[in-house]
């Protein structure tokens, strides 16, 4: 049976290896912070880190994730202290909040690769993540303030 490491914990998963990581995380492992939004990689609500890279869990199969390290929003920090999470709080970014775990995971990956992104780099990295409430202005601001804090 496939083994995956989620937030530092090894899980043996009894499921179809083609099952998207999204549903493995949500329905089988029971972590609910990773959200379903579109199922086709078009909205970013299910963004997680796979070996440090931001990926869409709805397009990543269990087989793809086997033997690799998955980090979900629950594992980004133990206590919400990741600079991106703190910046999200300080800027009161969320409205409904549903897309925000995906936004935060995407932004955290961006800042790992590009610690001081320009507006254009933020737009490029974040344009795969939809927020239907329209919190984009604050997302941009929060990424900039997180960049300063890092």
């Amino acid at each position, binding site marked *: 049976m496939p083994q995956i490491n989620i937030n530092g914990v090894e899980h043996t998963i009894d*499921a*179809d290896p083609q*099952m*998207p990581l999204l*549903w493995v995380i*949500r*329905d*089988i492992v*029971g*972590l*609910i*912070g*990773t*959200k*379903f*939004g*579109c*199922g*086709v990689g*078009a*909205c970013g*609500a299910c963004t997680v880190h796979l070996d440090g890279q931001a990926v869409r869990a709805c397009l990543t199969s269990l087989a793809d994730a086997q033997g690799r390290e998955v980090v*979900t*929003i*629950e594992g*980004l920090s133990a206590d*919400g202290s990741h600079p991106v*999470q703190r910046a*999200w*709080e300080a800027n*009161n*970014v*969320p*409205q*409904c*909040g*549903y*897309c*925000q*775990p995906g936004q*935060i995971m995407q932004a955290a990956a961006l800042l790992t690769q590009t610690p001081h992104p320009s507006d254009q780099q*933020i*737009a*490029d990295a*974040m*344009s*795969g*993540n*939809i*927020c*239907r*409430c*329209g*919190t*984009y*202005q*604050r*997302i*941009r601001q929060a990424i900039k303030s997180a960049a300063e804090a890092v």
Partner: protein
Amino acid sequence: MTVITNVSRRDLLKGAAAAAGLVLGFHIGFRKLPIAEAAETPHFAPNAFVSIDETGLVTIVASRSEMGTGIKTDLPLVLADELEADWGRVKVVQAPADPKYGDQNTDGSRSTWQFFGLMRLAGATARQMLETAAGQTWNVPAGECRAQTGFVMHAASGRKLAFGDLAKLAALMSVPPADQVRLKDRKDWRYIGKPRGVVDLKDIVRGRATYGIDTVVPGMKYASIERCPVYGGEVKSFDPKDALSVAGVERVVEIPATPMPSGFKPLGGVAVIASNTWSAQQGRQRLKVEWDYGPNAGHDSTTYRAELEATAREPGKVVRNHGDVDNAFASAVRRVSADYFVPYLAHAQMEVPNAVAHWLGGACETWSPTQNPAQVRKTVAEVLGINETDVTVYVTLLGGGFGRKSKPDYVAEAALLSRIIGAPIKVTWTREDDIQHDYYHAICAQHLEAALDQDGRVNGWLHRTVSPPIEATFQPNIVYDSGGELGQGVIDMPYYIPNVRCENGTAANHVRIGWYRSVYNIPHAFAVCSFADELAVATGKDPVEYLRELIGPPRILDLKALGVLVDYPNYGVNQLAPELANEYLIDTGRLRGVLDLAVANSNWGQKLPPRQGRGVAVHRSFLSYVAVVAHVAVGNDGEVAIPRLDMAIDCGTVVNPDRVRAQLEGAAIMSIGNALYGNITVKEGRVEQSNYTDYLVPRIDIVPETHVYFVENYHLPGGVGEPGVPPTAPAICSAIHAATGRRIRALPVDPQQLKV
């Protein structure tokens, strides 16, 4: 634990509301303060909205749904302010559906105005009782005791007691009637008017906030439902064999179709039930279903649009008639006319419709992201044939609502399935289901015509609007818009024009039409605000100056005297809180106020590079006034960028300025989507779009630098969630005209038409 109840709470119910108005300085918009039930209130609980335990923890009930507006924080803040609670010792809990909380339908941007007074009364009542309890404890007059952030103080002696220490004594006291409750002076407000983060903020950024889709009930199964691609179609037959061969799939069952118009009830279809969401979806892809597509299989949005536009060219039912429009046109120096079009739109809220239901043999429990808990209860009871009192409706956080989650069809699906399979079940729509089976924003065609005098002033105004009414989703043969729909920018048109006629043409409906953030204001404000700009351009005047002329002198509109012939509900005030009706009249001075404020901050009139321009629009909706100045830059390829928006709002008293700001920022983004992207088309009865790949919504690359300004005044609170939407799209479209000379009369904007 000791159960303590306040013996005379019922006194509060008797005739309190009438007197309350005098004491509160304004009416409370609610006829009674509900009592807490003894069984659930082991603490000091002077009413159903607040309780305080002996540790001093204050529990406040949020009776309205949280879909991103901040209402779960903001109404409790109002209560906490009057209570003089320490916000750090407040816990907010979400109420299930319960009539004791009054209206829970979180819709129409009305939570704050509807509950502001009641929350104040609820908090002030509790505070006063704690002060009285302190006075008794110290043997001093209650009037010498003052609550302050979780304590009651006696200034003369320097003594103080924590709320928790007073709770037990206060719980034994009778609740003062509303007319004996002293509200705080607004200068003493501690929380109202100050920015505040929402109560779920930490949970959201940690991924711990629970939405409907996150509900887990032990033993729960998962369902995915195939529905007829045409509205009103039914299952002819289906073959479950291949679906059942998918690992994890357990059953395939039919949900009977609701006859059209299906209203709040399920569309029907074939449900695949599995041990997890993925298996249910996989099984569903292998289903073979034969459909009877029904009478809407010929619906085509292109030909339908042409029909609506043809109707708009002909006289319709007169819904406002003032002066003599025919004579105004006959004697006009110049006539200007324009036709406008807005397509069907889908909500596309991030969290798809979903629900968990658990049939308990004669009763049913449900968990869902719903804007309308009472309607969930009613609809679930109806489809199951049980009493409403046997339906329990738990309300989760909503991953967006925008009106979609006012309709409980998806909860009723889960309830029916749970009864069939005899186990709890979660129904999760796919995004394709959501886009293709939505309650769409109404498609709308409009015709406007103005008669101008020799100075370019408007002497006559004709406005025809044609769109399927929402009521057509609930009742057969409804072809005219309601007063409420026409009252969203047509009959309440505020311009100072002597001769006005508004008409409504008929439209037979073919899809589910529903409320979508700001509703009929979207097409109406697009047309009216765009037409004002067209008239300014046609007469060679500055659009801001022209708008000021159109708005005219500050005055209160008397719609009857202005010839309105249909019922004007004024966003529900007249029905839900008639005692507040005179507080929320249409005030052109306030309209002018927001216009001036937005313009003053917008660099209006300053020169811009080629293919850039500014546009302005101002509109009243949901009892608030919003003006927008948009600055756009149109590329040679026709792509529209929006570097900046300046938005001014007059929503009266502001509870949480940070959330008002957020609502306007978000409304602007939604309106940008309506202007530039949103477009649901139908062919052979089937919606042609399916996901975010072909139903486009704004992404971060379009976000403008958005500035929000407040008109500060002492008016009662107005709506905030929706009013930012209507004026933004026309301001953008007028800016596009200023930038390119091309007039946008149909949405969404087609970049091909803006190419150099």
